[in-house]
C-alpha cells in the first residue's frame, strides 16, 4: 500500500473512448483519461458535465455502451460494482451516504467486513481512528447525529476500511463550511502523500483541486475538452475565465 510518490509513473487506471447513455441521453462521449499510480487526478467541470457519471461508470454502477476501462492492464468495464470494489477501487460518493441509524463503529465495521478488508491482517479500525480521532470519540453515536464534516470523515473512514488502492472522491467538499473544506483537502492530500493512495478527485472547488492535482481533466457536456497537469490548467486562460472567474 505504501508505494510512495514518484516510485513510477505507471498508469493504474485508464479509461478509453467511454460512451454512456441514460436512455437516449448521452452522458459521456468518447471520454479517455489516465490515472497515474500514486498521484492525485482531478476531474473538473460544471454541474451536469458528466463527472459523477464517469465515477459511477468506473465503479460499475452504470454500464457503458462503448469503450474500455483498464485497471492494472485488465479490462474491467461491465463488471459488477462489488467486483470492482474488490479489486481495490473505492469511492466516496457524493452527499455523504452514511448509514444514519447505525453507530459510527457499525458504519466502519460494514466496511471492515468486505472480503478485501478481511485479507489484510493489520487493524483497519485503529488506522481510521488514528486518522480521524473525532470518529473514535463518537464511536457509539448514531451516524445520523454527526455534523456534516464528521459524516464526511465517516464516509472516508468507511471507504478506507475496505482497503482501496484508489479512492474516487465525488464532491467531497460539497456543503461543508470553508474551514472544513480546507481540512477535507488536507485529508485527501495526506491520504495521497503519506498513505500512498491514488486519488481521483471530482470537485466543484476547481482552484483547490487543481492546486493539489498532478493531472487534471476538464469535462464539458460529457467530453474531455482539456487536460494537463494541475498547474498548467490553473494557468490556462480559458480555465481561469470559465471556472475561476478571473
Amino acid at each position, binding site marked *: 500500500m505504501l508505494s510512495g510518490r514518484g516510485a513510477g509513473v505507471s498508469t493504474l487506471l485508464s479509461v478509453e473512448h467511454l460512451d454512456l447513455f441514460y436512455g437516449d441521453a448521452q452522458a459521456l462521449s468518447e471520454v479517455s483519461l489516465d490515472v497515474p499510480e500514486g498521484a492525485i487526478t482531478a476531474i473538473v467541470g460544471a454541474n451536469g458535465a458528466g463527472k459523477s457519471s464517469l465515477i459511477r461508470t468506473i*465503479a460499475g*454502477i452504470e454500464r457503458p455502451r462503448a469503450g474500455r476501462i483498464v485497471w492494472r492492464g485488465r479490462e474491467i468495464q461491465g463488471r*459488477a*460494482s*462489488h467486483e*470492482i*470494489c*474488490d479489486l481495490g477501487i*473505492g*469511492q466516496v*460518493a457524493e452527499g455523504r*451516504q*452514511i*448509514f*444514519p*441509524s*447505525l*453507530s459510527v463503529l*457499525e458504519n466502519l*465495521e*460494514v*466496511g471492515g*467486513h*468486505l472480503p*478485501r478488508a478481511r485479507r489484510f491482517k493489520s487493524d483497519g479500525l485503529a488506522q481510521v481512528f488514528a486518522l480521524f480521532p473525532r470518529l473514535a470519540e463518537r464511536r*457509539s453515536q448514531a451516524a445520523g447525529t454527526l455534523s456534516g464534516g464528521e459524516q464526511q470523515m465517516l464516509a472516508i473512514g*468507511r*471507504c478506507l476500511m*475496505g482497503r482501496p488502492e484508489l479512492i474516487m472522491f465525488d464532491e467531497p467538499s460539497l456543503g461543508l463550511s470553508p474551514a472544513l473544506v480546507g481540512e477535507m483537502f488536507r485529508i485527501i492530500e495526506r491520504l495521497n502523500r503519506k498513505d500512498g493512495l491514488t486519488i481521483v478527485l471530482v470537485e466543484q472547488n476547481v482552484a483547490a483541486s487543481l492546486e493539489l492535482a498532478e493531472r487534471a481533466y476538464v469535462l464539458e457536456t460529457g467530453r474531455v475538452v482539456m487536460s494537463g497537469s494541475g498547474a498548467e490548467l490553473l494557468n490556462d486562460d480559458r480555465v481561469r475565465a470559465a471556472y475561476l472567474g478571473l
Partner: protein
Amino acid sequence: MNSLVSALPGRRRAGLILALGLLLAAPWVAGPYLLSVLVLALYYAYVGQAWNVMMGFAGQLSLGHALYVGLGAYVSATLYLHAGLGPWAGVPIAAAVSAAAGAVIGFLAFRFGIGGVYFALLTIAFAEFTRIGFEHVDWLGGAGGLFLPVVERGHLDIVDLRGGPRLFYYVLLALTVAALWLCHRLRTSRIGYYWLAIREDPEAAQALGIDLFRYRVLAAAISAAMASVAGSVAAFYYNSLTPADSFGSAKSIEIILGPLVGGLGTLIGPILGAFVLTGLGEALRALLDVTGHQVPGATQLFYGLVLLLVIKYLPGGIWPGLARHLGLGNRVG
C-alpha cells in the same frame, strides 16, 4: 445460545433467563384456555422473527409472507398424508421448498430492479396466485383444504408431532428461542452488517462494495425457510389447512403486526409485539364475550388501532423505548 447470553450485559442476561424460566413453567400453571393463547403468541413471535429478517434487517417489505408459511404447512402435511413422511423429515423439505420460493421471487424482483412498494405488491401477488392455484388442485383438497387425522386426548407422539397443546407450546418455544439465537448470530455476522447497510441506504451499500442482489436474495430465502417451519407446526397443531387461511392476505398482515408493534429490526421486538398483541386481542375478545357482545372483526379493528397508536407515538416500536426505560442500554437489539 451461550454466545447470545454471554454477550449481553448483566441485566439483559438476567431478564432473558427470567423470561425463559417463566415461559418454561407456564404450561404447568396455565389452564387450557391460557395455554392456547400462549401457543398463539409463541407462533406469532416466531413467525414475526422470520419476517423481521427480511424487513427489519434487509429492508425488503414482504406483504405476502403467508405464502412461505402456507407452503410449509401444505408441503409437510401432504408428505405426511400421501407419503407417510413424518414432520421431522417433512419440515426440512418444506423449508427448502419455501426457501426456493423466496429465492425465486427475490431473484425475479431484484434482478429486474423491482423495489419498495412494487416489491411489496409482487409478494402479495405471488401469495394470491398460490392461494387461487391451490384451490384448484384436487389432491391438495381444493378449496376445502386438507385434514390431518385428529389424535385422542392425552396421546403424545413426538416423532409424528401428534399431541396436545402442551407439546406444541414447547415446540414453538424451542423454535422461538432458536430463531432468536439465529437472528442474533446473523445480526452480528458479516451478512447482518451487509443487510443493515442495504436497509439503511442501498446506493451507499453498493458504492461500498456490497453485492445487493446476492444478499437481498439470501435474506428472502432465509426468512422464507424460517417462516415455513411455523406453517408446518401450525398444520400439525390445528390438523386442518385451507388455501384461504394459509395463503390469504389477512394471514400475511397478521404476521407483520408483531414486529411492527414490538420494534422493527430488533431481536426482542417481534417476540414482545406478538405477546402484547395476542394478549390484548384475547382480553378484548373475553371482555366482549362477558358483556354479551358479538362484534365480528373486533380484534382486527383493535389491532389496527394499536398499530396506529404505535406508529404515532412509538414509531420505533415498543421495545427500543422499553429497553431504555429498563436500563438495558439504548442500542438496538
